[in-house]
């Protein structure tokens, strides 16, 4: 089973974790806020842990050593960037995906070897497509 660690249990993080777990991924999701974790649906089949995604000890507890993928989805760009770089450079996780709202900042980190997703660009495109499909 492919092990995935997700940092940040907001709407996107929680839903992604639930979907991946339902598809038989071994999912661990981390958040610093217990309230966020409590939003996971009761049927969530993965592991939810209280912890900071930029803290190596928390990541070890989440079983990052041996994970094949790491996804940073907290609400803060810089927090995601730091967590992703820890996963990539310290724990050598093969796939690291990082949400960065600021598209210019996203480009820089793409050049530095992170896989980045900019919701700003994605949303603008999808609104524009919707409007123009009319």
């Amino acid at each position, binding site marked *: 089973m492919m092990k995935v660690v997700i940092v940040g249990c907001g709407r996107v993080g929680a839903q992604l974790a639930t979907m991946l777990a339902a598809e038989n991924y071994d999912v661990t999701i981390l958040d610093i806020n217990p309230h966020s974790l409590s939003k996971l649906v009761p049927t969530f089949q993965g592991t939810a842990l209280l912890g900071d995604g930029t803290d190596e000890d928390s990541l070890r507890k989440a079983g990052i050593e041996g994970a094949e993928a790491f996804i940073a989805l907290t609400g803060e760009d810089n927090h995601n960037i*730091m967590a992703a*770089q820890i996963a990539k450079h310290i724990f050598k996780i093969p796939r690291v995906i990082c949400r960065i709202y*600021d598209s210019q900042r996203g480009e820089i980190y793409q050049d530095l070897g992170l896989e980045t997703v900019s919701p700003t660009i994605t949303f603008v495109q999808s609104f524009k497509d919707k409007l123009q499909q009319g």
Partner: protein
Amino acid sequence: MYVIIVGSGRLSRSLAKALLDEEHEVLIIDKDEAKVSAIEEELGSIYLLGDGCEVDVLEEAGTDRADVFIAVTGHDEDNLVACQVAKHKFNVPRTIAQVTDTKNEHLFKMLEVDVTVTSFDIILEHIKREIPIHPLTRLAFFPDTEVEVVELKIPSDAASVNKRIDELSLPSESCVSLIVRSGEDAKIMPSSDFTLQAEDKLVIIARGTQSDLEKNLCDTFTTPEK
């Protein structure tokens, strides 16, 4: 020099003032309007209101002609990102980041932040200098050259007591540059046949990897006699 400082706490205000006194050009970037107006009152219009991690803000700041870029926001992740953007987007030759959590220091180094400064380390070194927790105190370390200056105190039970300096196995590139003995004049660059006594304080300059070097020096000077 043109120095950009991101973050406008008391630390960056004092730093800016010192740099301005030395006639350097200084710009402080902060997104907090109240903090920025405190700078204006104290130091004049040497600020830019904005997020020091954003490309547009750094472009307006003229980051591409900065000689030094310093991030002291109080948040490790913001300091890291600001320095990385400055380095990789604007080719700033020297980036310096304040690190609050010492555990992050090796990550910053790995990600090519040129210098990291941890207040924790500085405070600890100061306290250690006052309290003999450890016989060896690091006075200075120059990472680029791997040269270190340390202060050592010879414990009374050490094997090195009553030995001449040339009888001891010092690390290959090192020299005892100062010996302070209570009640006597300090000896600058003592000769190699100088005999050590208990409670002597030595200042040693040496080259090597930090941890190896310190262990090596402790073995030589402070290990108790068998």
